[in-house]
């Protein structure tokens, strides 16, 4: 059975992908993020828009296509996300 992921976990997966698995220094493409984060195009588009507006991701316009890189705020958010995932895990809960 497929594991249910909370909205927070999907955001964590996207940020972790842009931090750890960049194809090149220009950032990750939407197609790459869809494959890695395993969600639909329409959903990831909404999430990416939110993450960019919140300053957690940087949107780069390279050769006519949008690519995404994690920002310093995004790295700090990801650190907090991992810390408090452990915290909630202790109570048997998912954040």
């Amino acid at each position: 059975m497929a594991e249910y992921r909370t909205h927070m976990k999907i955001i964590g997966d996207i940020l972790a992908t842009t931090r750890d698995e960049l194809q090149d220094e220009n950032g990750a493409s939407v197609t790459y993020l869809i494959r890695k984060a395993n969600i639909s195009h329409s959903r990831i588009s909404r999430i990416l828009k939110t993450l960019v507006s919140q300053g957690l991701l940087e949107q780069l316009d390279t050769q006519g296509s949008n690519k995404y890189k994690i920002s310093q705020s995004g790295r700090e958010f990801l650190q907090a996300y991992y810390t408090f995932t452990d915290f909630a895990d202790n109570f048997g809960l998912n954040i």
Partner: protein
Amino acid sequence: MEFLLENILNLIGFLVGLVIGIMAIIGFRNTGSPTLFRLTIAFFSISLGFFVVWAGYMVEDFVIKSGSIERWVQTLGIAIQTVGYFFIAFSHSIKSFFPKSRYFRSIGVFPLFLISSVQLEHIFRSVSFILLAYGAIETMLSYFENKNKGAISVAVGLALLALGEFLGWYSFVFPESILYSASMTIKIGGLIALFIPVSKVPLTKIKFDEGLE
């Protein structure tokens, strides 16, 4: 002896609840997670509940000097703690029963409790027992899924609090027995077990939101 144990229990309960509540609110402010928001309400309620009972004992001992705590103060404190236990159990019920339903998440699910003619304190204690036992079982089940050792400690802590709550409720039947002292000792053990894994969370790595400073 009972007075001393009661004070130790309520002070530890106040401090443990406060520390875990502060950690949960820091987590909520940094991540926006609704789970952490519910834990914040839960542990601040538990902390406030213990504080109310402790304050009741202090006022009785140093101001009123009537020999026993005002019944309504004790009932109020236990009721506030029950709200906290409810939010812990509620978080588990959302995870277990409604993982995908936005509707149930938005309205919440309030269980129906039948109120009899017995004292309110008895009702709150028995409701707390049910909520704590449910929380302990769900936490232990999550350990079997994730193998997170901290979950064992929290499950044991919630189970000890449940047992303490049960013995505290049962001591009304045998008021002069050792049951009430045993209940408080077990609850102190439960609070310590609850705090152990949380004390290991490395908050020093977190760069806090500016709004928190």
